[in-house]
């Protein structure tokens, strides 16, 4: 019988065991010692206690507390401080860039009924600007690097039940309709244990390197918590440091003899494309033991290019651990590290018909990489229309149940029932419906697509409603209804966006300008590429009787060529 400790207690055990060991390290430039800052387990514990004292002093036990930090040590202390004080942390990105980002954070504040914001005093101006522009001046702000009340209570003395909420992970839902995944203590402890087992490393070998955003499950759970609950060291970089200088990621692994470092698929491609020969010449990646590739489409060709490019640095194919997971199941669901990538050559036509069949001709073949077997979780592949369970090799929706499956969405009973309370035709359940499509072959999961109207950009989900909303806000001429969709995927290409929008009658020259502007806005605010832009006359975008936009129907009509656009732009 496995016991489930609370996260706070599990971390405190490691503080006792590893007090003087480095717990977290933050790196700006791996070749410049002056830019590297580190805290031992003991120091991190002290910092977390100080945050907890702030929270306890203000009576925030049980309250939702928004964490608005850049990547770094203060975020980790704030997160642990919430666990110590029994407050419910809500990690979110600093709203620095666009109006869209501010709206999103404000929507989260309202949805989670946030009582206080934790931040560091360097960001006071950014936070004040957001609070005043979005009309939230009454919210309490606590700057956790400022001296506060001293702690009298022993942390972890607050009793925590395994079913108690550990934190809220906001990754689901559009800006107007954010959904916070409610993760219990048990969910997180269980999934962290699963991740650690998947790595195949021992505690003393666990040196994690990560540039993933800390408000994202793959950064917070897959890197920080996996390290801290298992006595490892977690070396962090800011996400922008990686995007700016991809070789800093690999250089940091080299310098800290990193063993575990995960990333979404696009990151490997960026390394291959951007790291120069002279940078490569001095890299030693032989310490790297496991890299879980998840949260993006997995491209076997990208992983092979990465192996080809970096094998001279000691990188081995067996380091790749393709995985499948989602926030609604805490983080990881399936995964496997194996001597070579397991790739199926599937017949495209059979796949379209809902079956896996080995391709006989190269022209019909689609390469699909195995995401490995289920990790301490039940997977069923289910027909999304009839809810009938399907046998191996049949493509259907991925349904899950187990201890990593979250409790639901915060304060959303209907959507929770719909997503977390699914029942098969044989009345078996409840299951989590993932909205992703795949099949099981040889006991392993192969992901083939998705049902949900969501676009994946650099490993993060973008919702069509948000793109439609921003386009309408920025371009007044787009007066009517819009239908933004994801185009069918092409191998080795990122998701491409199709924008269909109603527009007033305007001269063609003006429509061309509007199309250019729309493409620009989607790239700037969402990081996504628009492949086609179609303008329809008012009333051209179909909706259901209840007023929902029929995005997928509009996409199918576009692909079938049955739309009658007044202007069309294609890249």
């Amino acid at each position, binding site marked *: 019988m496995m016991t489930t400790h609370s996260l706070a207690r599990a971390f405190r055990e490691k503080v006792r065991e590893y007090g003087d060991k480095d717990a977290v390290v933050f790196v700006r430039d791996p070749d410049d010692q002056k830019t590297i800052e580190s805290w031992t387990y003991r120091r991190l514990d002290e910092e977390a206690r100080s945050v907890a004292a702030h929270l306890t002093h203000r009576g925030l036990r049980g309250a939702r507390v928004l964490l608005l930090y850049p990547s770094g040590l203060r975020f980790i202390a704030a997160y642990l401080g919430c666990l110590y004080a029994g407050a419910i942390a809500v990690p979110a990105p600093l709203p620095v860039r666009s109006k869209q980002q501010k709206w999103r954070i404000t929507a989260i504040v309202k949805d989670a009924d946030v009582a206080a914001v934790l931040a560091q005093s360097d960001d006071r101006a950014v936070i004040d600007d957001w609070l005043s522009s979005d009309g939230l001046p009454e919210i309490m702000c606590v700057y956790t690097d400022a001296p506060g009340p001293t702690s009298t209570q022993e942390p972890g003395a607050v009793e925590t039940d395994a079913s108690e909420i550990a934190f809220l992970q906001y990754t689901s839902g559009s800006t107007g309709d954010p959904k916070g995944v409610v993760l219990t203590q048990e969910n997180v402890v269980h999934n962290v244990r699963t991740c650690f087992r998947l790595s195949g490393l021992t505690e003393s070998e666990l040196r994690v390197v990560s540039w993933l955003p800390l408000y994202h499950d793959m950064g917070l759970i897959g890197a920080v918590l996996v390290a801290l609950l298992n006595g490892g060291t977690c070396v962090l970089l800011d996400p922008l440091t990686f*995007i700016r200088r991809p070789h800093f990621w690999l250089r940091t692994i080299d310098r800290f003899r990193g063993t575990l470092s995960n990333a979404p698929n696009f990151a490997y491609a960026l390394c291959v494309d951007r790291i120069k020969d002279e940078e490569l010449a001095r890299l030693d990646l032989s310490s790297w033991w496991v890299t879980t590739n998840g949260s993006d489409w997995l491209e076997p060709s990208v992983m092979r290019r990465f192996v080809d490019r970096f094998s001279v640095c000691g990188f081995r194919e067996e380091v790749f651990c393709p995985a499948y997971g989602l926030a609604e199941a805490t983080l990881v669901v399936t995964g496997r590290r194996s001597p070579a990538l397991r790739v199926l050559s599937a017949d495209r036509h059979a796949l379209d018909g809902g079956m896996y069949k080995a391709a006989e001709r190269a022209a019909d073949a689609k390469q699909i990489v195995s995401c490995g077997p289920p990790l301490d979780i039940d997977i069923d592949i289910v027909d999304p229309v009839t809810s009938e369970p399907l046998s191996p090799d049949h493509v259907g929706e991925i349904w899950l149940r187990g201890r990593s499956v979250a409790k639901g969405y915060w304060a959303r009973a209907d959507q929770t029932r719909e997503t977390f309370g699914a029942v098969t035709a044989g009345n078996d359940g409840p299951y989590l419906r993932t909205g992703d499509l795949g099949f099981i072959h040889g006991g392993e999961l192969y992901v083939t697509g998705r049902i949900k109207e969501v676009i994946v950009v650099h490993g993060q989900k973008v919702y069509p409603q948000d793109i439609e909303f921003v386009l309408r806000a920025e371009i007044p001429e787009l007066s009517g209804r819009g239908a933004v969709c994801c185009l069918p995927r092409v191998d080795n290409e990122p998701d491409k966006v199709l924008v269909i929008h109603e527009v007033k009658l305007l001269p063609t020259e003006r429509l061309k300008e509007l199309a250019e502007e729309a493409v620009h806005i989607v790239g700037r605010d969402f990081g996504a590429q628009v492949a086609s832009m179609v303008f329809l006359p008012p009333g051209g975008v179909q909706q259901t009787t209840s007023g929902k936009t029929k995005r997928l129907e509009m996409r199918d009509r576009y692909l079938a060529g049955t739309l009658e656009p007044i202007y069309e732009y294609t890249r």
Partner: protein
Amino acid sequence: MDDIVAQADAEKMRSWLAARAAHYAKLDPSEIDYDTPLSQYGLDSVSAVSMAVDIEDEFGVQLDLETLWEFRTVNRLADVLTTRP
């Protein structure tokens, strides 16, 4: 004389910018029109950062992303870069 040198520099900068944009868009530099916003060639948020870093390395000018998105064409970017101290 200085004007001619400046003009030659500006022209060099334009073709350099077009070459970098073409690299990220996986196009031939001749396909980049100097007055068309680079976003039209499929430059996304990650390639915009890469361009900013390239500009920093080449010209020693730190461009923030807002500037890059605002001065969106080769010609407008070259103007910004040549007029900045």
